[in-house]
């Protein structure tokens, strides 16, 4: 009976599993293999010699590589941090409401549903030029004395990037946290109130601990996504001005498909993969510990 079940199960699972194997695992292995060779499509006469870890060494000595990593880390920390804080605040406020439930859902879903490049272009448009809407409003309100050319300054260019990402994904983070909040037993708050805990205390000792799993899940998804950021920056700043907003994924893309340095680009790809993978493992361990060890 169980053997029958197992056989049926494998029959069902195999097509999907094989497809994934072919289309994902295999290319990944190939990338690792490529990264160990010199393979520059602009200089085909050099062939494809095996160079061991040379590409990785080159990366470690490449200032543009480190800059890209720095940009990525900055982007990840800032946007995810903001999304968590604002998302948490939103979720808390909305936990009680709720006649406008449909409206909230729509507000959440639509920014999330549109292509990232489109949202990038929307925000680019708002920050564009001397008379774009953002400049006009800020100057009109007296916050700025004269319009800024946002995309000329490295620091300025980050503003629309971070804002666009927060705009697109905060509502989704809020949703995740709201679901987590609604899973918290109301009687815990009542018990805390009877014990004389203030609103802040209740938040610290009831809400936060019980919300940890949801927060971790949100963190996992958002951080991994932030580290892989590509579409947003490609369409908003193109990595500019110069390369001052270039994240690691965009640098890898340029190395591969623009500079046609397949060997070097592959090494960069592998590095990105390893970072993402390590983060994922770290989070899963944290989440696992939280879900099993932390259970009362």
């Amino acid at each position, binding site marked *: 009976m169980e053997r029958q*079940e*197992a056989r049926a*199960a*494998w029959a*069902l699972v195999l*097509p*999907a*599993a094989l*497809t*994934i194997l072919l289309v*994902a695992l295999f*290319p*990944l292995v190939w*990338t690792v293999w*490529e990264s160990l060779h010199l393979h520059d499509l602009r200089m085909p006469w050099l062939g494809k010699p095996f160079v061991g870890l040379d590409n990785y060494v080159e990366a470690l000595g490449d200032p543009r590589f480190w800059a890209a990593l720095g940009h990525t880390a900055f982007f990840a920390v800032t946007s995810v941090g903001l999304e968590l804080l604002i998302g948490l605040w939103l979720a808390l*406020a909305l936990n*009680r409401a*709720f006649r*406008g439930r*449909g409206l*909230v*859902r729509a*507000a959440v*879903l*639509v*920014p999330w*549903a*549109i*292509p*990232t*490049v*489109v949202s990038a*272009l*929307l925000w680019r*448009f*708002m920050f*564009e030029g001397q008379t*774009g*809407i953002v400049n006009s409003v800020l100057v009109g309100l007296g916050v700025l004395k004269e319009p800024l050319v946002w995309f000329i300054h490295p620091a300025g260019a980050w503003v629309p990037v971070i804002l666009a990402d927060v*705009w697109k994904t905060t509502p989704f983070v809020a*949703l995740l946290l709201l*679901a987590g909040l609604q899973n918290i037993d109301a009687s815990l708050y009542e018990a805390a109130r009877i014990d004389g805990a203030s*609103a802040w205390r209740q938040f610290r000792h009831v809400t936060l601990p019980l919300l940890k799993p949801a927060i971790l*899940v949100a963190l996992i998804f958002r951080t*991994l996504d932030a580290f*892989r950021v*590509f*579409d947003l920056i490609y*369409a908003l700043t193109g990595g500019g001005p110069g390369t001052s907003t270039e994240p690691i*994924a965009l640098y*890898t893309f340029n190395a*591969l*498909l623009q500079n046609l340095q*397949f060997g070097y*680009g*592959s090494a960069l*790809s592998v590095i990105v*993969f390893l970072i*993402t*993978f390590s983060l994922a493992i770290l989070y899963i361990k944290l989440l696992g510990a939280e879900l099993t060890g932390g259970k009362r």
Partner: protein
Amino acid sequence: MRGRGWWPAVVLAMLVGASAFPFYWAILSSFTPESRLFQEPSLLPRNLVLDHYRALFTERSFWLPIRNSLIVAGATTIFCVSLGALCAYALARLEFRGKAFLLGSILAVGMFPQISVVSPLYLLLRELHLINTYPGLVLPYLTFAMPLTVWLLVGFFRQLPGELEEAAMVDGAGRLRAFWEVIVPLAVPGIATTAILTFVYSWNEFLFALSFTLGPERQTVPVAIALFRGQYQVPWGQILAAAVIATLPVTLLVLAFQRRIVQGLTAGAVKG
């Protein structure tokens, strides 16, 4: 934070406002003549024209990328949901060795950075002469669409009451019949939601579409919009008009099925 009736309403208003404003502004601007776009922007509609929309179709054949996106996203969805549903059912409700490992692997693949598989996929597709073709996009799309489908559907199947198949088998149905008569009717809402989400993700995909297509014949909507070039300056009017059109189908889909989508996404996530 509790008991203050007006506070949530304020937050709600702010949320809706902040979400909606960029859309409002983009839509408004898409109906504004190019020359007026950067002169004295006004928050209220004035002098609306259809120039940009017309130009999209007369000058840029914008229906081409729309067609391409529909075909690619549609094919990806159909393929992934069919294979993924079977796979997810087995993972969620049948017992077999290696189950946890398989599920873990599938999810892990979903977390691969796309950039890490772009170059080998490019070389592979080039070998197979699939660059700039429909299969040449659907195939790479499976790397993220399949794990997504499986993850969502496993969540849905797990929510079905246990022992249903056993009751059906004791009642006289073989395994296949039990699946068809009892599980499938209950899974239809979950499958529909998964199909919608898969379609949305496929429609929005950018990096692969950018890397594996060469021209308007096969470019998808996000790529076409990102690559709009003007003769002398960036054609913002047309870009915004294209953006509005590009986002219309997914926006409508998502709005129509909001509740299910939110359920599907958060159920899988919060329960892990």
